[in-house]
């Protein structure tokens, strides 16, 4: 049984037998690198309710997910939260139908959270398109345009437009499949 770290809300403290099974599943996914009765200095603690949007990896429940500081998973989860915050901020400014964007946003968010950006902003246009700007070190800027009604533009569901700038100069642009693009772009950015 895991004892309770002092700064964790009570509703997330209890683990059931079923949770242990799921923790094992998560470990097999490489999500949980450690779980113990306290949070050590080199660990970052979160509970799964924060991550319930990441349905491929973690479901909601009373499970502690402990991730090493600065691990890619930690960056990923922090990025997810940042993107969610920016999306909510923008929703407040826009008169748009959230439901129209929900599915596309959820997928985009999970892809873009893999990128080690410094800042991100989002904009919605007329229940039709989503536009992200991501800021990176070295005056690098990535713009992502996603059309919700992709079929009308003869695009595939997972295709996006990207424009990549360095020092405000357009370096590259294209129509790409997002998952593959994000992997390649992140490896380029981290070189």
């Amino acid at each position, binding site marked *: 049984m895991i004892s309770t770290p002092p700064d964790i809300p009570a509703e997330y403290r209890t683990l059931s037998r079923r949770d242990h099974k799921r923790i094992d599943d998560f470990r097999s996914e490489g999500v949980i690198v450690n779980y113990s009765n306290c949070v050590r200095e080199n660990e970052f603690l979160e509970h799964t309710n924060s991550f319930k949007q990441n349905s491929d990896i973690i479901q909601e429940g009373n499970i502690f997910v402990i991730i090493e500081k600065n691990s890619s998973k930690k960056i990923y989860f922090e990025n997810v939260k940042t993107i969610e915050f920016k999306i909510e901020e923008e929703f407040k*400014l826009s008169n748009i139908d959230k439901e129209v964007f929900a599915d596309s946003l959820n997928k985009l968010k999970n892809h873009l959270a893999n990128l080690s950006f*410094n*800042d*991100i*902003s989002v*904009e919605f*246009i*007329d229940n039709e398109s989503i*536009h992200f*700007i991501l*800021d990176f070190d070295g005056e690098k*800027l990535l*713009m992502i*345009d996603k*059309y919700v009604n992709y079929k*009308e*533009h*003869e*695009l595939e569901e997972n295709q996006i*437009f990207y*424009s990549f*700038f360095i020092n*405000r*100069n*357009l370096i*590259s*642009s*294209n*129509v790409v499949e997002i998952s*593959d693009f994000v992997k390649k772009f992140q490896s380029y950015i981290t070189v």
Partner: protein
Amino acid sequence: MLSKFQTLLKNFNLTLQCNYLKVTGKIDYPESILPKSNFYKLIDFELLLASNKNIYIIRRSDKSVEETFQLNGGKHYLRIGAIKNERLPKLSLNLLGAFFKKEHLKYVVPHNKAGGAKWKNNEKVSFSSFFQDYHVTDFGCEIYLHANNINGKTFPFAYPYSKDNARVVREFENAVGGGAIQQVTDPLNPKNIYYQVNGTIRLVHDPIILNYWHVEMISENFNGKEVKSASPVWTKTFFDNMMRNLIRVNAYPSREEIGTVNENIYLNVS
């Protein structure tokens, strides 16, 4: 003879009316921005941008700075919503650095008025003939665009293989020579065949009767033609997006240093 007299009388009346409105302060159009017969018909943008690295063009936004720009990484970027309804290509702009000043943005000259027609043949413009062809508007903020970073920018993109697009490529290669455009097969998806080409954004001087400093932004496909419709449908959307993104990245809510347009760029002394 009668008709000529009537025209003269009409012009005389218009001049009287115009002068009265000017004297009483009811109209205050900046006549300094009108074309003059000793100006070049068109400014050569390549020459202009080569002469100064800080050339800016300006347009107005109906919205406030906060609604027009978005902060990201401590820098301002134009919101796509600020230009989503604008005509692209042929975005309407004004050249700064000579006679057009940011204070002149409030004067609107509709294209369907005689004063909004193209200025041709170095014709002398008499303001009194066009003083009814503009109105004054309130606006939210200025959008400054760095012309040097926009004009002539190319964006590489995959022009998809299709029957229609193959014909366009063939026509182009017949004109410039075969092999100018590379056909590529995606190694990961052999069904995905495309041509590797470049689109280009250009700034074009477009003087109108009531504003010599009017400029348009256009986009061209690899063959120098405007992209109107293409197969697949996203080609046009993609072009518009690239144009918008290039604008967004090079847009500023204010500028301290604006390059001067040298006289030899617009004044024909020969």
